Protein backbone atom coordinates (compact mmCIF):
# COMPACT_ATOMS: atom_id res chain seq x y z
CA UNK A 1 0.00 0.00 0.00
CA UNK A 2 1.31 3.45 -0.87
CA UNK A 3 0.67 5.76 2.06
CA UNK A 4 0.00 9.39 1.12
CA UNK A 5 -0.17 12.71 2.95
CA UNK A 6 -2.14 15.55 1.38
CA UNK A 7 -1.73 19.23 2.16
CA UNK A 8 -3.88 22.04 0.76
CA UNK A 9 -5.44 24.96 2.62
CA UNK A 10 -8.53 25.07 0.39
CA UNK A 11 -11.03 22.47 1.55
CA UNK A 12 -12.60 21.63 -1.85
CA UNK A 13 -9.18 21.16 -3.42
CA UNK A 14 -8.02 19.02 -0.52
CA UNK A 15 -11.14 16.87 -0.58
CA UNK A 16 -10.87 16.29 -4.30
CA UNK A 17 -7.31 15.05 -3.92
CA UNK A 18 -8.20 12.92 -0.91
CA UNK A 19 -11.02 11.26 -2.81
CA UNK A 20 -8.97 10.62 -5.91
CA UNK A 21 -6.05 9.16 -3.98
CA UNK A 22 -8.39 6.94 -1.98
CA UNK A 23 -9.91 5.66 -5.22
CA UNK A 24 -6.58 4.18 -6.24
CA UNK A 25 -6.50 0.47 -5.36
CA UNK A 26 -2.95 0.59 -4.05
CA UNK A 27 -3.06 3.96 -2.26
CA UNK A 28 -4.29 5.19 1.08
CA UNK A 29 -4.56 8.67 2.57
CA UNK A 30 -2.95 8.53 6.00
CA UNK A 31 -3.02 12.24 6.77
CA UNK A 32 -4.30 15.61 5.58
CA UNK A 33 -3.09 19.06 6.48
CA UNK A 34 -4.44 22.55 5.83
CA UNK A 35 -1.24 24.49 6.30
CA UNK A 36 2.47 23.99 5.79
CA UNK A 37 3.40 23.55 9.43
CA UNK A 38 0.93 20.72 10.03
CA UNK A 39 1.96 19.21 6.68
CA UNK A 40 5.57 19.00 7.88
CA UNK A 41 4.34 17.54 11.15
CA UNK A 42 2.22 14.94 9.35
CA UNK A 43 5.19 13.88 7.21
CA UNK A 44 7.46 13.72 10.25
CA UNK A 45 5.02 11.67 12.27
CA UNK A 46 3.45 9.41 9.64
CA UNK A 47 6.44 8.79 7.32
CA UNK A 48 4.32 8.41 4.19
CA UNK A 49 5.68 7.18 0.86
CA UNK A 50 4.32 10.16 -1.01
CA UNK A 51 3.22 13.70 -0.13
CA UNK A 52 1.00 15.94 -2.26
CA UNK A 53 1.92 19.51 -1.29
CA UNK A 54 0.02 22.58 -2.43
CA UNK A 55 2.58 25.30 -3.18
CA UNK A 56 0.55 28.20 -1.76
CA UNK A 57 -0.30 27.53 1.87
CA UNK A 58 -0.38 29.61 5.07
CA UNK A 59 2.59 29.47 7.48
CA UNK A 60 4.85 27.44 5.19
CA UNK A 61 4.50 27.02 1.44
CA UNK A 62 4.76 23.56 -0.11
CA UNK A 63 8.26 24.45 -1.29
CA UNK A 64 9.26 25.53 2.20
CA UNK A 65 7.92 22.29 3.65
CA UNK A 66 10.06 20.34 1.19
CA UNK A 67 13.10 22.48 2.05
CA UNK A 68 12.81 21.51 5.72
CA UNK A 69 12.61 17.74 5.18
CA UNK A 70 15.52 15.46 5.82
CA UNK A 71 16.98 14.18 2.60
CA UNK A 72 17.44 10.52 3.44
CA UNK A 73 14.00 9.91 4.92
CA UNK A 74 11.86 12.19 2.79
CA UNK A 75 8.84 10.88 0.91
CA UNK A 76 8.34 11.35 -2.82
CA UNK A 77 6.85 14.80 -3.26
CA UNK A 78 4.24 15.90 -5.75
CA UNK A 79 3.78 19.67 -5.81
CA UNK A 80 0.29 20.94 -6.60
CA UNK A 81 -0.16 24.52 -7.75
CA UNK A 82 -2.68 26.74 -9.49
CA UNK A 83 -0.27 29.23 -10.93
CA UNK A 84 3.37 29.74 -10.26
CA UNK A 85 5.37 30.13 -13.45
CA UNK A 86 8.72 30.08 -11.72
CA UNK A 87 8.01 27.01 -9.62
CA UNK A 88 6.69 25.15 -12.64
CA UNK A 89 9.84 26.01 -14.57
CA UNK A 90 11.92 24.59 -11.71
CA UNK A 91 9.75 21.46 -11.63
CA UNK A 92 10.16 20.97 -15.37
CA UNK A 93 13.93 21.31 -15.21
CA UNK A 94 14.16 18.60 -12.58
CA UNK A 95 11.52 16.37 -14.14
CA UNK A 96 9.68 16.17 -10.88
CA UNK A 97 6.01 15.41 -10.52
CA UNK A 98 3.61 18.23 -10.18
CA UNK A 99 -0.08 18.79 -10.75
CA UNK A 100 -1.40 22.02 -12.21
CA UNK A 101 -4.82 23.06 -10.96
CA UNK A 102 -7.32 22.35 -12.31
CA UNK A 103 -6.35 18.83 -13.33
CA UNK A 104 -8.53 15.99 -14.63
CA UNK A 105 -8.49 12.32 -13.72
CA UNK A 106 -6.26 11.41 -16.69
CA UNK A 107 -3.59 13.85 -15.60
CA UNK A 108 -3.91 12.65 -12.03
CA UNK A 109 -3.60 9.01 -13.16
CA UNK A 110 -0.37 9.82 -15.00
CA UNK A 111 1.09 11.39 -11.87
CA UNK A 112 0.07 8.42 -9.75
CA UNK A 113 1.64 6.05 -12.28
CA UNK A 114 4.89 7.98 -12.10
CA UNK A 115 4.80 7.86 -8.30
CA UNK A 116 4.49 4.07 -8.46
CA UNK A 117 7.41 3.78 -10.86
CA UNK A 118 9.62 5.99 -8.76
CA UNK A 119 8.82 4.17 -5.56
CA UNK A 120 9.60 0.95 -7.38
CA UNK A 121 13.04 2.28 -8.34
CA UNK A 122 13.57 3.55 -4.77
CA UNK A 123 13.75 7.22 -5.68
CA UNK A 124 13.17 9.74 -2.93
CA UNK A 125 12.08 13.32 -2.72
CA UNK A 126 15.64 14.58 -3.14
CA UNK A 127 14.89 16.60 -6.26
CA UNK A 128 11.86 18.23 -4.68
CA UNK A 129 13.85 19.07 -1.58
CA UNK A 130 16.63 20.57 -3.67
CA UNK A 131 14.11 22.75 -5.52
CA UNK A 132 12.54 23.82 -2.24
CA UNK A 133 15.92 24.77 -0.80
CA UNK A 134 17.06 26.63 -3.90
CA UNK A 135 13.82 28.52 -4.43
CA UNK A 136 13.36 29.74 -0.94
CA UNK A 137 15.26 31.39 1.87
CA UNK A 138 15.07 28.02 3.64
CA UNK A 139 18.43 28.76 5.21
CA UNK A 140 16.86 31.60 7.21
CA UNK A 141 14.45 29.47 9.21
CA UNK A 142 14.58 26.00 10.65
CA UNK A 143 11.69 23.75 11.56
CA UNK A 144 12.31 22.18 14.99
CA UNK A 145 10.25 19.87 17.19
CA UNK A 146 8.87 21.61 20.27
CA UNK A 147 7.19 19.02 22.50
CA UNK A 148 4.46 17.52 20.36
CA UNK A 149 4.49 20.29 17.79
CA UNK A 150 6.82 21.80 15.23
CA UNK A 151 7.93 25.39 15.25
CA UNK A 152 10.08 27.65 13.11
CA UNK A 153 13.13 29.30 14.59
CA UNK A 154 15.42 31.89 12.98
CA UNK A 155 18.66 30.25 11.98
CA UNK A 156 20.48 33.38 13.22
CA UNK A 157 19.40 32.42 16.74
CA UNK A 158 21.22 29.08 16.53
CA UNK A 159 24.62 29.25 18.25
CA UNK A 160 26.02 25.83 17.48
CA UNK A 161 25.07 22.39 16.23
CA UNK A 162 26.21 19.09 17.68
CA UNK A 163 25.82 15.74 15.92
CA UNK A 164 24.79 12.79 18.05
CA UNK A 165 24.27 9.57 16.11
CA UNK A 166 21.25 10.08 13.86
CA UNK A 167 20.33 13.22 15.74
CA UNK A 168 21.53 16.80 15.91
CA UNK A 169 21.35 19.00 19.01
CA UNK A 170 20.46 22.53 17.92
CA UNK A 171 21.71 24.95 20.57
CA UNK A 172 20.16 28.42 20.85
CA UNK A 173 20.66 30.91 23.68
CA UNK A 174 17.34 29.88 25.20
CA UNK A 175 17.20 26.14 24.75
CA UNK A 176 18.35 23.10 22.85
CA UNK A 177 16.29 21.25 20.26
CA UNK A 178 16.83 17.67 19.22
CA UNK A 179 16.37 17.02 15.51
CA UNK A 180 16.37 13.70 13.73
CA UNK A 181 18.65 14.89 10.94
CA UNK A 182 22.27 14.35 9.97
CA UNK A 183 24.60 17.30 10.54
CA UNK A 184 25.61 17.26 6.89
CA UNK A 185 22.02 17.45 5.67
CA UNK A 186 21.23 20.22 8.13
CA UNK A 187 24.28 22.21 7.01
CA UNK A 188 23.34 21.76 3.38
CA UNK A 189 19.96 23.33 4.22
CA UNK A 190 21.27 26.16 6.40
CA UNK A 191 24.04 26.98 3.92
CA UNK A 192 27.72 27.83 4.27
CA UNK A 193 27.15 31.52 4.81
CA UNK A 194 26.39 31.45 8.51
CA UNK A 195 27.51 28.05 9.78
CA UNK A 196 30.79 26.24 9.56
CA UNK A 197 32.07 22.90 10.73
CA UNK A 198 34.87 23.01 13.26
CA UNK A 199 34.80 19.32 14.12
CA UNK A 200 33.39 16.13 12.60
CA UNK A 201 30.38 16.44 14.87
CA UNK A 202 30.25 20.19 15.57
CA UNK A 203 29.33 23.25 13.53
CA UNK A 204 29.16 26.84 14.83
CA UNK A 205 27.40 30.01 13.88
CA UNK A 206 30.33 32.23 12.81
CA UNK A 207 28.83 35.33 14.39
CA UNK A 208 28.81 33.59 17.80
CA UNK A 209 32.56 33.06 17.90
CA UNK A 210 34.29 35.35 20.41
CA UNK A 211 37.92 34.21 20.08
CA UNK A 212 40.30 31.37 19.24
CA UNK A 213 42.95 30.08 21.64
CA UNK A 214 45.83 27.90 20.49
CA UNK A 215 46.74 24.71 22.36
CA UNK A 216 49.60 22.26 21.76
CA UNK A 217 50.43 20.78 18.39
CA UNK A 218 48.33 23.18 16.38
CA UNK A 219 45.07 22.42 18.15
CA UNK A 220 42.77 25.28 18.89
CA UNK A 221 39.85 26.06 21.14
CA UNK A 222 36.91 28.07 19.91
CA UNK A 223 35.41 30.37 22.53
CA UNK A 224 31.80 31.31 21.92
CA UNK A 225 30.26 34.56 23.09
CA UNK A 226 28.08 32.62 25.52
CA UNK A 227 31.23 31.33 27.29
CA UNK A 228 31.17 27.82 25.90
CA UNK A 229 34.47 26.37 24.68
CA UNK A 230 34.54 24.01 21.69
CA UNK A 231 37.38 22.00 20.12
CA UNK A 232 38.58 23.00 16.67
CA UNK A 233 39.96 19.94 14.94
CA UNK A 234 42.99 20.31 12.66
CA UNK A 235 41.03 19.11 9.64
CA UNK A 236 38.73 22.15 9.68
CA UNK A 237 41.31 24.64 10.93
CA UNK A 238 42.48 26.18 7.65
CA UNK A 239 38.96 26.65 6.35
CA UNK A 240 37.89 28.42 9.54
CA UNK A 241 40.98 30.67 9.54
CA UNK A 242 40.24 31.61 5.95
CA UNK A 243 36.68 32.56 6.89
CA UNK A 244 37.76 34.47 10.00
CA UNK A 245 40.30 36.40 7.93
CA UNK A 246 43.48 35.06 9.54
Amino acid at each position, binding site marked *: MIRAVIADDEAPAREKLERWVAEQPDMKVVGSAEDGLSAAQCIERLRPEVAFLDVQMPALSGLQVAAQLELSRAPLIVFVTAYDEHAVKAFDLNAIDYLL*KPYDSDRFARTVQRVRERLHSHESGAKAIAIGRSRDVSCERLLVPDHERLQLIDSASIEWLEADGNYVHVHTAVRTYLLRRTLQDLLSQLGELRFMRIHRSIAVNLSCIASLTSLFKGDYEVHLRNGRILRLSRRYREALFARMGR
Partner: protein
Amino acid sequence: MLWVVFWLLMISVSSQENFRNPLTRWWEPVLWEGSSALVATGWLLLAVRIRKRHALYLDRPLVWFGTYLRWLPVIIITWIAGAYSIRHGVYAFVGRAYEHPSWGFVAVYESVKLTIFVGLWLGILFGIDSHGQWQRQQQRLLEMQRALASAQLAHLQGQLRPHFLFNALNTVSALMHTDVARADRLVAALGDLLRISLRSSEGEMTSLAQELRTLELYADIMRERFRDRVALTWQVDPALLDIPIPALLLQPLLENVFKHGVERTVARVRINIGARCEDRNLEIVVSNSGSLLTPGHHDGVGLRNCRDRLRIVYGNAASLIVHEEGDGVAARVSIPLAGTTP
Protein backbone atom coordinates in the same frame (compact mmCIF):
# COMPACT_ATOMS: atom_id res chain seq x y z
CA MET B 1 31.67 82.31 -17.40
CA LEU B 2 30.79 83.52 -20.87
CA TRP B 3 30.11 86.91 -19.35
CA VAL B 4 33.53 87.16 -17.68
CA VAL B 5 35.36 86.07 -20.85
CA PHE B 6 33.38 88.63 -22.87
CA TRP B 7 34.36 91.53 -20.61
CA LEU B 8 38.01 90.48 -20.32
CA LEU B 9 38.10 90.46 -24.12
CA MET B 10 36.48 93.91 -24.26
CA ILE B 11 39.01 95.29 -21.81
CA SER B 12 42.00 93.76 -23.61
CA VAL B 13 40.83 94.96 -27.06
CA SER B 14 40.30 98.44 -25.70
CA SER B 15 43.75 98.44 -24.02
CA GLN B 16 45.44 97.24 -27.22
CA GLU B 17 43.83 100.01 -29.20
CA ASN B 18 44.93 102.72 -26.79
CA PHE B 19 48.34 101.22 -26.20
CA ARG B 20 49.83 103.13 -29.08
CA ASN B 21 48.36 106.39 -27.90
CA PRO B 22 50.96 107.86 -25.51
CA LEU B 23 48.43 110.30 -24.11
CA THR B 24 46.32 107.61 -22.45
CA ARG B 25 47.55 105.78 -19.41
CA TRP B 26 47.18 101.97 -19.15
CA TRP B 27 44.42 102.13 -16.55
CA GLU B 28 42.14 104.40 -18.50
CA PRO B 29 40.71 101.82 -20.98
CA VAL B 30 40.44 99.38 -18.05
CA LEU B 31 38.35 101.95 -16.20
CA TRP B 32 36.12 102.67 -19.21
CA GLU B 33 35.33 99.06 -19.94
CA GLY B 34 35.38 98.09 -16.26
CA SER B 35 32.73 100.65 -15.36
CA SER B 36 30.61 99.47 -18.28
CA ALA B 37 31.01 95.88 -17.14
CA LEU B 38 30.02 96.73 -13.56
CA VAL B 39 26.73 98.41 -14.47
CA ALA B 40 25.96 95.79 -17.12
CA THR B 41 26.60 93.00 -14.63
CA GLY B 42 24.05 94.56 -12.29
CA TRP B 43 21.46 94.40 -15.01
CA LEU B 44 22.43 90.90 -16.04
CA LEU B 45 22.01 89.67 -12.45
CA LEU B 46 18.55 91.26 -12.34
CA ALA B 47 17.64 89.66 -15.66
CA VAL B 48 18.80 86.24 -14.45
CA ARG B 49 16.82 86.64 -11.23
CA ILE B 50 13.55 87.22 -12.97
CA ARG B 51 14.07 84.68 -15.75
CA LYS B 52 11.88 82.07 -13.99
CA ARG B 53 8.93 84.43 -14.16
CA HIS B 54 9.49 84.90 -17.87
CA ALA B 55 10.07 81.22 -18.61
CA LEU B 56 6.31 81.02 -19.31
CA TYR B 57 6.80 82.98 -22.52
CA LEU B 58 9.71 80.95 -23.87
CA ASP B 59 7.51 79.33 -26.50
CA ARG B 60 6.43 82.85 -27.67
CA PRO B 61 9.81 84.50 -28.38
CA LEU B 62 8.34 87.91 -29.35
CA VAL B 63 6.53 88.24 -26.03
CA TRP B 64 9.59 86.98 -24.19
CA PHE B 65 11.92 89.56 -25.81
CA GLY B 66 9.21 92.23 -25.41
CA THR B 67 8.96 91.72 -21.66
CA TYR B 68 12.71 92.18 -21.31
CA LEU B 69 13.08 95.03 -23.84
CA ARG B 70 10.42 97.09 -22.02
CA TRP B 71 13.22 97.89 -19.64
CA LEU B 72 15.62 99.08 -22.35
CA PRO B 73 15.11 102.86 -21.71
CA VAL B 74 15.68 102.37 -17.99
CA ILE B 75 18.76 100.28 -18.74
CA ILE B 76 20.15 102.98 -21.03
CA ILE B 77 19.56 105.78 -18.53
CA THR B 78 20.94 103.90 -15.51
CA TRP B 79 23.83 102.59 -17.56
CA ILE B 80 24.92 106.02 -18.77
CA ALA B 81 24.37 107.54 -15.33
CA GLY B 82 26.18 104.66 -13.59
CA ALA B 83 29.16 104.17 -15.89
CA TYR B 84 29.80 107.86 -16.51
CA SER B 85 29.57 108.81 -12.84
CA ILE B 86 32.09 106.08 -11.97
CA ARG B 87 34.44 107.35 -14.68
CA HIS B 88 34.01 111.00 -13.65
CA GLY B 89 34.49 110.05 -10.03
CA VAL B 90 37.71 108.09 -10.58
CA TYR B 91 39.17 110.79 -12.87
CA ALA B 92 38.36 113.45 -10.27
CA PHE B 93 39.95 111.26 -7.64
CA VAL B 94 43.28 111.21 -9.48
CA GLY B 95 42.97 114.90 -10.20
CA ARG B 96 42.12 114.78 -13.86
CA ALA B 97 39.05 115.50 -15.96
CA TYR B 98 37.26 112.76 -17.91
CA GLU B 99 36.87 114.10 -21.44
CA HIS B 100 34.09 112.83 -23.64
CA PRO B 101 31.85 114.18 -26.45
CA SER B 102 28.77 116.24 -25.60
CA TRP B 103 26.02 114.57 -23.49
CA GLY B 104 23.67 114.58 -26.49
CA PHE B 105 26.10 112.57 -28.57
CA VAL B 106 26.86 110.27 -25.66
CA ALA B 107 23.14 109.56 -25.21
CA VAL B 108 22.59 108.62 -28.85
CA TYR B 109 25.88 106.75 -29.23
CA GLU B 110 25.48 104.71 -26.04
CA SER B 111 21.80 104.00 -26.75
CA VAL B 112 22.64 102.39 -30.09
CA LYS B 113 25.55 100.50 -28.59
CA LEU B 114 23.49 99.29 -25.61
CA THR B 115 20.57 98.22 -27.79
CA ILE B 116 22.85 95.99 -29.82
CA PHE B 117 24.56 94.77 -26.66
CA VAL B 118 21.32 93.97 -24.80
CA GLY B 119 19.92 92.25 -27.89
CA LEU B 120 22.99 90.06 -28.15
CA TRP B 121 22.91 88.97 -24.51
CA LEU B 122 19.16 88.47 -24.45
CA GLY B 123 19.63 86.17 -27.44
CA ILE B 124 22.14 84.13 -25.49
CA LEU B 125 19.92 84.04 -22.38
CA PHE B 126 16.98 83.00 -24.55
CA GLY B 127 19.04 80.19 -26.03
CA ILE B 128 20.14 78.88 -22.64
CA ASP B 129 16.68 79.16 -21.09
CA SER B 130 14.77 77.57 -23.90
CA HIS B 131 17.23 74.71 -24.08
CA GLY B 132 16.76 74.14 -20.35
CA GLN B 133 13.02 74.24 -20.71
CA TRP B 134 13.13 71.83 -23.64
CA GLN B 135 15.14 69.41 -21.53
CA ARG B 136 12.70 69.70 -18.65
CA GLN B 137 9.79 69.06 -20.98
CA GLN B 138 11.49 65.99 -22.43
CA GLN B 139 12.05 64.75 -18.90
CA ARG B 140 8.43 65.31 -17.92
CA LEU B 141 7.23 63.63 -21.10
CA LEU B 142 9.39 60.62 -20.34
CA GLU B 143 8.08 60.43 -16.77
CA MET B 144 4.50 60.66 -17.95
CA GLN B 145 5.03 57.90 -20.47
CA ARG B 146 6.59 55.74 -17.79
CA ALA B 147 3.71 56.37 -15.37
CA LEU B 148 1.19 55.60 -18.10
CA ALA B 149 2.96 52.37 -19.02
CA SER B 150 3.08 51.18 -15.41
CA ALA B 151 -0.60 52.06 -14.91
CA GLN B 152 -1.51 50.07 -17.99
CA LEU B 153 0.59 47.15 -16.81
CA ALA B 154 -1.03 47.28 -13.39
CA HIS B 155 -4.42 47.30 -15.04
CA LEU B 156 -3.53 44.28 -17.14
CA GLN B 157 -2.14 42.38 -14.18
CA GLY B 158 -5.21 43.32 -12.21
CA GLN B 159 -7.52 42.04 -14.90
CA LEU B 160 -5.80 38.75 -15.54
CA ARG B 161 -5.36 37.50 -11.95
CA PRO B 162 -4.32 34.05 -13.14
CA HIS B 163 -3.88 32.73 -9.64
CA PHE B 164 -7.45 33.59 -8.75
CA LEU B 165 -8.80 32.17 -11.98
CA PHE B 166 -7.03 28.81 -11.83
CA ASN B 167 -7.88 28.28 -8.17
CA ALA B 168 -11.53 29.11 -8.86
CA LEU B 169 -11.55 26.62 -11.74
CA ASN B 170 -10.01 24.01 -9.48
CA THR B 171 -12.77 24.60 -6.93
CA VAL B 172 -15.37 24.09 -9.67
CA SER B 173 -13.62 20.91 -10.70
CA ALA B 174 -13.72 19.68 -7.09
CA LEU B 175 -17.35 20.63 -6.45
CA MET B 176 -18.51 19.00 -9.67
CA HIS B 177 -18.07 15.57 -8.15
CA THR B 178 -19.91 16.29 -4.93
CA ASP B 179 -22.41 19.11 -5.41
CA VAL B 180 -23.41 19.83 -8.98
CA ALA B 181 -25.76 22.69 -8.06
CA ARG B 182 -23.02 24.50 -6.15
CA ALA B 183 -20.51 23.96 -8.93
CA ASP B 184 -23.10 25.40 -11.31
CA ARG B 185 -23.61 28.51 -9.17
CA LEU B 186 -19.85 28.98 -8.92
CA VAL B 187 -19.40 28.80 -12.70
CA ALA B 188 -22.20 31.37 -13.12
CA ALA B 189 -20.60 33.73 -10.57
CA LEU B 190 -17.23 33.38 -12.25
CA GLY B 191 -18.83 34.13 -15.62
CA ASP B 192 -20.58 37.25 -14.26
CA LEU B 193 -17.38 38.52 -12.68
CA LEU B 194 -15.36 37.99 -15.85
CA ARG B 195 -18.05 39.77 -17.87
CA ILE B 196 -17.92 42.78 -15.57
CA SER B 197 -14.15 43.07 -15.64
CA LEU B 198 -14.02 42.69 -19.42
CA ARG B 199 -16.73 45.32 -19.88
CA SER B 200 -15.34 47.94 -17.54
CA SER B 201 -12.53 50.18 -18.54
CA GLU B 202 -10.30 52.48 -16.53
CA GLY B 203 -12.16 55.75 -16.86
CA GLU B 204 -15.61 54.28 -16.53
CA MET B 205 -18.02 55.15 -13.72
CA THR B 206 -20.56 52.79 -12.25
CA SER B 207 -23.06 52.92 -9.40
CA LEU B 208 -22.09 51.94 -5.87
CA ALA B 209 -24.74 49.20 -6.11
CA GLN B 210 -23.09 47.70 -9.18
CA GLU B 211 -19.64 47.93 -7.61
CA LEU B 212 -20.86 46.18 -4.44
CA ARG B 213 -22.44 43.49 -6.60
CA THR B 214 -18.98 42.90 -8.14
CA LEU B 215 -17.52 42.52 -4.66
CA GLU B 216 -20.29 40.09 -3.76
CA LEU B 217 -19.51 37.90 -6.79
CA TYR B 218 -15.83 37.93 -5.94
CA ALA B 219 -16.50 37.13 -2.29
CA ASP B 220 -18.89 34.29 -3.23
CA ILE B 221 -16.20 32.63 -5.30
CA MET B 222 -13.56 33.08 -2.61
CA ARG B 223 -15.92 31.75 0.05
CA GLU B 224 -16.36 28.54 -1.92
CA ARG B 225 -12.59 28.17 -2.01
CA PHE B 226 -11.97 28.90 1.65
CA ARG B 227 -15.36 27.68 2.83
CA ASP B 228 -15.89 28.29 6.58
CA ARG B 229 -12.68 30.25 7.04
CA VAL B 230 -14.46 33.45 6.01
CA ALA B 231 -17.38 35.37 7.55
CA LEU B 232 -18.62 38.36 5.60
CA THR B 233 -20.80 41.22 6.84
CA TRP B 234 -22.23 44.15 4.89
CA GLN B 235 -23.10 47.53 6.39
CA VAL B 236 -24.32 49.62 3.52
CA ASP B 237 -26.58 52.67 3.72
CA PRO B 238 -29.21 51.94 1.01
CA ALA B 239 -29.60 55.65 0.29
CA LEU B 240 -26.12 55.73 -1.20
CA LEU B 241 -26.53 52.93 -3.75
CA ASP B 242 -27.02 55.19 -6.78
CA ILE B 243 -23.90 57.27 -6.21
CA PRO B 244 -21.47 56.96 -9.11
CA ILE B 245 -17.97 55.66 -8.37
CA PRO B 246 -15.12 54.49 -10.65
CA ALA B 247 -15.72 50.95 -11.90
CA LEU B 248 -13.71 48.13 -10.31
CA LEU B 249 -12.23 50.55 -7.77
CA LEU B 250 -13.04 48.40 -4.74
CA GLN B 251 -12.17 44.92 -5.97
CA PRO B 252 -8.41 45.31 -5.37
CA LEU B 253 -9.20 46.16 -1.73
CA LEU B 254 -11.14 42.94 -1.25
CA GLU B 255 -8.44 41.02 -3.14
CA ASN B 256 -5.92 42.32 -0.61
CA VAL B 257 -8.12 41.15 2.26
CA PHE B 258 -8.03 37.64 0.87
CA LYS B 259 -4.40 37.72 -0.16
CA HIS B 260 -3.04 39.10 3.11
CA GLY B 261 -5.79 38.26 5.58
CA VAL B 262 -7.32 34.94 4.55
CA GLU B 263 -4.66 33.09 2.56
CA ARG B 264 -2.01 33.64 5.22
CA THR B 265 -3.83 31.84 8.02
CA VAL B 266 -6.18 28.92 8.54
CA ALA B 267 -7.92 30.79 11.35
CA ARG B 268 -11.39 32.20 10.75
CA VAL B 269 -11.38 35.72 9.33
CA ARG B 270 -14.17 38.29 9.59
CA ILE B 271 -14.52 40.60 6.62
CA ASN B 272 -16.62 43.74 6.82
CA ILE B 273 -17.66 45.85 3.87
CA GLY B 274 -19.31 49.15 4.73
CA ALA B 275 -20.51 52.27 2.94
CA ARG B 276 -21.87 55.39 4.62
CA CYS B 277 -22.10 59.13 4.28
CA GLU B 278 -19.80 61.20 6.41
CA ASP B 279 -19.18 64.96 6.13
CA ARG B 280 -20.48 65.18 2.57
CA ASN B 281 -18.15 62.32 1.65
CA LEU B 282 -18.93 58.77 0.66
CA GLU B 283 -16.91 56.54 2.99
CA ILE B 284 -16.32 52.96 1.89
CA VAL B 285 -14.51 50.60 4.25
CA VAL B 286 -13.19 47.13 3.47
CA SER B 287 -11.70 45.56 6.59
CA ASN B 288 -10.64 42.20 7.93
CA SER B 289 -9.76 40.72 11.29
CA GLY B 290 -6.80 38.64 12.29
CA SER B 291 -3.93 40.12 10.30
CA LEU B 292 -1.82 43.23 10.75
CA LEU B 293 0.21 45.24 8.28
CA THR B 294 3.73 43.94 7.90
CA PRO B 295 6.28 46.42 9.30
CA GLY B 296 7.56 48.70 6.56
CA HIS B 297 4.68 47.69 4.32
CA HIS B 298 4.23 49.57 1.07
CA ASP B 299 1.48 49.80 -1.50
CA GLY B 300 1.22 46.91 -3.91
CA VAL B 301 0.07 47.15 -7.50
CA GLY B 302 -3.60 47.06 -6.49
CA LEU B 303 -3.47 49.95 -4.01
CA ARG B 304 -1.30 52.09 -6.28
CA ASN B 305 -3.76 51.56 -9.07
CA CYS B 306 -6.67 52.60 -6.79
CA ARG B 307 -4.88 55.76 -5.70
CA ASP B 308 -4.00 56.70 -9.29
CA ARG B 309 -7.60 56.31 -10.38
CA LEU B 310 -8.95 58.32 -7.44
CA ARG B 311 -6.51 61.12 -8.27
CA ILE B 312 -7.43 61.12 -11.96
CA VAL B 313 -11.17 61.32 -11.26
CA TYR B 314 -11.31 63.46 -8.09
CA GLY B 315 -7.95 65.25 -7.89
CA ASN B 316 -7.02 65.71 -4.25
CA ALA B 317 -10.60 65.60 -3.01
CA ALA B 318 -10.66 61.79 -2.60
CA SER B 319 -8.45 59.63 -0.43
CA LEU B 320 -7.53 56.03 0.26
CA ILE B 321 -6.08 55.11 3.64
CA VAL B 322 -4.95 51.66 4.73
CA HIS B 323 -4.43 51.30 8.46
CA GLU B 324 -4.58 48.85 11.34
CA GLU B 325 -7.87 48.78 13.18
CA GLY B 326 -8.47 46.58 16.19
CA ASP B 327 -6.91 43.20 15.46
CA GLY B 328 -7.03 43.68 11.71
CA VAL B 329 -6.53 45.97 8.74
CA ALA B 330 -8.97 48.44 7.20
CA ALA B 331 -8.87 50.15 3.80
CA ARG B 332 -10.90 53.37 3.74
CA VAL B 333 -11.93 55.14 0.55
CA SER B 334 -13.36 58.63 0.87
CA ILE B 335 -15.02 60.19 -2.18
CA PRO B 336 -16.63 63.68 -2.29
CA LEU B 337 -20.38 63.47 -2.79
CA ALA B 338 -20.74 66.76 -4.68
CA GLY B 339 -19.74 66.24 -8.30
CA THR B 340 -16.78 64.39 -9.68
CA THR B 341 -14.55 67.27 -10.67
CA PRO B 342 -11.79 68.46 -8.36
